[in-house]
């Protein structure tokens, strides 16, 4: 299957390894990956801060860039959610609304794509150790992808999953919230870091670069010996 990759700006600029793992996992599952170089950011930082008009520029650019794709896959629940949000942003625009609706229909988050479209739950990955999983808010609540990551992780050979206490609580990222309300964000991420420590896991796995950057950055600052991994990297471990 021909898959058009929406890598996300975080992966492009900060987490190449996640992008590489995504490509390798999907290729191993028989997909042919296309990466349109016109892709930029989905517009979420500006959009969530209330700058909808400024964000629309990025949205239009992305809609045009991905127009010809058959299916779009992205290793981020939050950015996939944003792609699906475009149709609401352009709800009163007769030209862009149908284009945004078509974009939404063919967009999948990575784990959702592997489990629901490719119908694969065991990707043949192998990773020894104890891990815990942080379910990111946009992916679970807004996109509604809850089970796919757990199904995939349950088949990773050698990996023991421990439940994360208070997993449902946000890690305190929230895009610009992390800097705008830094003091509150700190308390939220600290509680998340403490919950991770409680599990005694060696790996913290997530499916969203922003949340992992937040929790990982705080764990590093607090000298926590936990390795942060994007689920694509776990699925690409052999």
């Amino acid at each position, binding site marked *: 299957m021909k898959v058009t990759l929406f890598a996300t700006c975080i992966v492009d600029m900060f987490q190449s390894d996640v992008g590489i793992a995504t490509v390798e996992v999907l290729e191993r599952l028989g997909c042919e990956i296309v990466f349109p170089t016109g892709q930029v950011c989905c517009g979420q930082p*500006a959009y969530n*801060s*209330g700058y909808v008009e400024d964000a629309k*520029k990025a949205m239009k650019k992305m809609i045009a860039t991905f127009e010809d794709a058959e299916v779009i896959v992205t290793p981020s629940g939050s950015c996939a959610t944003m792609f699906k949000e475009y149709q609401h942003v352009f709800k009163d625009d007769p030209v862009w609304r149908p284009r945004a609706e078509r974009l939404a229909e063919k967009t999948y988050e990575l784990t959702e794509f592997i489990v629901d479209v490719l119908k694969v739950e065991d990707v043949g990955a192998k990773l020894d150790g104890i891990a815990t999983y942080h379910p990111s808010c946009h992916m679970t*609540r807004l996109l509604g992808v809850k089970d796919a990551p757990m199904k995939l992780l349950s088949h990773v050979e050698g990996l023991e999953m421990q439940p994360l206490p208070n997993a449902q609580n*946000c890690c305190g990222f929230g895009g610009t919230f992390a800097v705008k309300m830094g*003091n509150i964000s700190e*308390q939220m991420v600290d509680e998340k870091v403490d919950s991770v420590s409680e599990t005694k896991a060696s790996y913290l796995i997530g499916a969203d670069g922003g949340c992992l950057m937040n929790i990982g950055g705080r764990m590093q*600052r607090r000298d926590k010996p936990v390795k942060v991994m994007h689920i694509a990297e776990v699925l690409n471990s052999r």
Partner: protein
Amino acid sequence: MAMKIGNEKFKDNVNKQMEDTFMRGAVAGAQERLRTRRLDAAEELGNWEEWRSHGEEIRQHTLDNLDYYLQELSENLQKRGGHVFFAATAEEANDYVKGIVKEKRAKKILKAKSMVTEEIGLNDVLQQEGCDVIETDLGEYILQLDEHDPPSHIVTPALHKNKEQIKDVFTEKLEYKLTSKPEELALHAREKLREEFLQADIGITGCNFAIAESGSVGLVTNEGNAGMVSDLPDTQICVMGMERIVPTFEEFEVLVGLLTRSAVGQKLTSYITALTGPRTAEEVDGPSEFHLVIVDNGRSGILGTEFQSVLQCIRCAACINVCPVYRHIGGHSYNSIYPGPIGAVLTPLLGGYDDFKELPYASTLCGACTDACPVKIPLHTLLHQHRQVIVEREGRAPISEKLAMKAFGLGASSNQLYAAGSKMANSVMKPFTKDETISKGPGPLKAWTEIRDFPAPNKERFRDWFKQHDKERDDA
């Protein structure tokens, strides 16, 4: 006290509240309990999503036809001998109640729990008239005794206090001599309040839902105090927000079921009361005079706008009980009697952006509130809507942020700009980078790196890797 409970800035409030480790422990514990109970109650009922949709539909229908149902409610109550007053503002509502107090030469006024009377600041007004105003909901009673400490939660107003603190308040104000056992504290409050009930001239309650078809006021309580407040005094006044109404008892039943399950995880509360006007000739108890004060105070200005759905709220606090921000900053940080996600949406609408423009930003837009709401108010979407209004319609955003977002718009819509920027990022950040980590960032990164490390930008962007990968693949 009115809706606004203090003059401190949001940031200062938050910093102060977050130092209160007891409050934070109490809130976290209460969130765990209430969240679990709510989920259990929803599961026990079954088809929860359908019930939510039904609740939403009832609320939307009622709001879309609010004028009709208010008229029906008013006519039916008047037929039963009740008086109805429509108050456009807090002042009008307070003046009307004050008028009754004067006419009755009332001295002692007993109240059941009511958020709308907190919102309009009714207690202060009546006290200035020389009345003795006594709150009879246990939580509210404790707060009132404790020098009018404001509520920090809309269902459990004294959530931020522990039993030791309550014992201290009782000891100082009520000559209490026993221990901090909740049963002993409650019994003492009960004895004190019984004496008050017997002497009350006027009883004032709020209203969970008025029922248009019969002209009734529906009340949902666990302590039974609302029954005492409405039965014993000779004059009865109900104060309701104008949106708190249902067409018939059938919808009342649905919404009460959603309310009690969502608020405290109960199938029903101990007391669900419907009051319909003054006592009739055949009845032996109840007030001889019944007044219903229907308060607008900014609500009609919300109708018909993008924020209308906030008026669907049934005040269950489920959103507050799951909010990860409220969890750490507590209710008083919001500077409003309406805290948490619902407060962050409603307060700026009723009280304006001058005092409350920070509240819509006190959220990560995680959507937990929207998920929990039993009548499907899209709370996180409304918080986002506020941000858009603040930035684009009101132009209240800081200039540095505006410029940054303009630059974002430009960069994100141009291949050349994005490509150049992302390519340069690693070398620009080099002076701040050590071991692939930035621990003291410049400019906007400063706030991030105050508490966490930031990764250095990739030396090789993903797109550069892919270009190479693609080439190798084609060559192979």
